[in-house]
């Protein structure tokens, strides 16, 4: 009742100041605060509405088991709507609430926060977002991509194609990409590999919003006739590309998609799993619900007398949310252990993050190894292929052309 009165008062004043006080009065004694940005309503809501519950459920699971090293985790979530100014507001809010880390959501958002994170000594994670150069821990000490960057994905895609085709010498590969900075990012890697591996590369740009690509796909399938297609599309465009390639009679088994064209939702929007038989997807977290940690989450819901969330079925994004949360929890666990149980600071958590190794959650996470220099953790991916109505793992965790990627990261660092 008291809380209601306080909140009502806050509403009446519409000041928010009082409301903050009400929230803090219920804070627990021993807790660490995680700042979590999400997009549940903006242009990437398709991802956010599934990924964010995954993140929250994992944190709830940890809390239901007594927290991390005796500390409860309190999540402060801000929906940044994929806009940049709210991301800055969110970061300041997290700082005010005493957060030890900032789970950033979105590529322009992490770009805008890089500097602030460093100044505030609070680490930010950006799995699947942001520039590949951010893997360089020396250059961006507080930015942690923690998942394969677009450069690593490009290397892995070529590796996968090489395995499929035997040799790449004299082969033709088409790269169809969304025409924005993130879409263009893999180009230097692909161009270099085309030279060193001896394949012919032709690129096809799809302009925003990426729902019209009939011309590009026709160009690929009828004129260029490549041996393999690497697709790097976002939002609605992956499903359109599946439909178009299927419609033009190109075998989907000769397509490999980067991580944002890889969700069940994309395939279902293209007409269902049956239509997309053979479509290869790249993943930086495990797919499906067959992991012990997901079973634990289901058990947690059952114990509360509730059904497990329906988002869980959309396992590609849900599991990525779980992965982000899991890596962050491990970092905080390392930090608390290193301090002998004392409350960690942002700097401690950064060190904790940089000592993560061998946390796999039964295969949901790649064999990540984060170090002070490598904030990407190795750039591991898996390939999952649509087979018989579901995604089946066809290639376990692997890295593609790691030395080339590292060379580019070093070259990029020396440029600035």
């Amino acid at each position: 009742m008291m809380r209601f009165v306080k909140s009502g008062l806050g509403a009446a004043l519409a000041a928010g100041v009082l409301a903050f006080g009400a929230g803090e009065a219920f804070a627990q004694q021993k807790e660490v605060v995680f700042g979590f940005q999400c997009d549940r309503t903006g242009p990437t809501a398709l991802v956010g509405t599934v990924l964010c519950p995954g993140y929250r459920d994992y944190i709830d699971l940890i809390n239901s088991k007594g927290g991390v090293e005796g500390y409860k985790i309190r999540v402060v979530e801000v929906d940044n709507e994929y806009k940049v100014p709210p991301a800055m507001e969110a970061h300041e809010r997290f700082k005010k609430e005493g957060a030890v880390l900032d789970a950033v959501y979105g590529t322009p958002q992490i770009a805008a926060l890089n500097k602030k994170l460093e100044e505030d000594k609070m680490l930010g994670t950006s799995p699947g977002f942001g520039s590949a150069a951010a893997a360089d821990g020396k250059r961006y000490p507080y930015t942690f991509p923690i998942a394969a960057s677009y450069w690593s994905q490009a290397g892995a895609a070529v590796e996968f194609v090489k395995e499929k085709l035997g040799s790449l010498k004299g082969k033709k590969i088409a790269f169809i990409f969304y025409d924005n900075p993130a879409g263009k990012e893999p180009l230097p890697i692909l161009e270099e590999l085309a030279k060193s591996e001896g394949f012919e590369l032709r690129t096809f740009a799809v302009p925003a919003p990426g729902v019209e690509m009939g011309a590009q796909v026709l160009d690929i399938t009828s004129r260029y006739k490549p041996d393999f297609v690497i697709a790097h599309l976002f939002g609605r465009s992956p499903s359109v590309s599946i439909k178009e390639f299927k419609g033009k009679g190109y075998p989907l088994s000769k397509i490999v998609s980067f991580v944002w064209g890889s969700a069940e939702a994309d395939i279902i929007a293209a007409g269902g799993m049956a239509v997309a038989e053979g479509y290869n997807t790249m993943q930086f977290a495990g797919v499906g619900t067959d992991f012990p940690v997901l079973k634990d989450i289901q058990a947690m819901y059952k114990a509360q007398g509730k059904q497990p969330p329906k988002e869980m079925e959309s396992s590609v994004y849900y599991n990525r949310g779980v992965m982000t949360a899991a890596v962050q929890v491990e970092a905080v666990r390392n930090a608390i252990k290193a301090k002998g149980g004392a409350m960690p600071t942002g700097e401690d958590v950064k060190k904790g993050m940089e000592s993560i190794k061998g946390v796999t959650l039964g295969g949901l996470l790649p064999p990540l190894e984060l170090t002070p220099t490598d904030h990407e953790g190795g750039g591991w991916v898996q390939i999952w292929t649509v087979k018989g109505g579901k995604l089946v793992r066809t290639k376990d965790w692997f890295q593609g052309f790691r030395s080339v990627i590292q060379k580019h990261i070093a070259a990029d660092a020396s440029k600035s």
Partner: protein
Amino acid sequence: MFHREAGVFKTTYASDMALYPLPIAKWTMVGLAVLFAIVLPMTLEEYYLSILNLIFIAVVGALGLNILVGYTGQISLGHGAFMSVGAYTAANLAVRLGLPFWLTLPAGGLMAAFIGALVGIPSLRIKGLYLAIATLAGQLIIEWTINHVPAISGGAQASIEVPRPDLFGLVLNTQFRLYFFLLFFAALAIIATLNLIRSRIGRAFIAVRDQDIAAEIIGINIYRYKLLAFAISSFYAGVCGVLYTYYFGIANYEAFQLIVSIDYLAMIIIGGLGSVLGSIFGAIFVTLLPIVLRILLENVGLLIFSESELANVISGTRLAVFGGLIIFFLIVEPEGLNRLWRNIRSYFRVWPFSY
């Protein structure tokens, strides 16, 4: 009730033309200046300062757009792109030539003014919705150009990191320091706009807005003034973009896409077209409302929902309430928050009498 005009006599032309002819208005301004320059930064936490910082930047952009849309009657859907022009100009100058902000900031503004005037050329022939589409094309062309010309964008990522601005050796790297930096430019923009609209140029803008044929007949060169309006308005937008660049430490065109142009149009329509105060109200409303709504919902919502369910509810509800409130305010007062404020003021001016 305090706002009495009776007994205020002017004896010189200068005092009659003063920005604030009434003593009460003058003292209010002094009070506000003290509040924003001294009281708020000394008392507020960094978090609240960071919100004010975002509002200050938005005020500059909203004022610029209002000069064009509200005062001159020309619509623009390209202001997001004009901001990015300013942002990239300043970032390139700051990084490649190492220029300080007091040179890059006007340079960014001037470049945006130039590009804005170019995009504004169709306004000489077309009006209304047609002009909206022409400026929309401008927005998309500028976005495409930045995306595809590495000389401007600095590489595939299309983002250029800029160093923090420094003033006499003081690096502006905290919200507290940036507060004064941004407050200065927001105040400058407000004062400049107030003076612009009561000048010869401002009156010409208003004449063009009210009836451009009539304006031409009384001797206003509407070609010149329409382009000038685009240039001045884009100058503000460019400066706004430069401020964003220095505030975030990076120029990135993805932060200035079409949605930003629309956000700023929303600000001035909600605040009140053709008014300086309206631009400020609009910038505050659009920036602050989502934050206030979230904080309220976070506390009230916990009574009904569990914490992780609440996150979804907040996002959806906030969007719906935000949209609903915009419609509500526009129905209550189509001329915006500024008119609402004036209605309140004129009510109390004669209070307790009705006339």
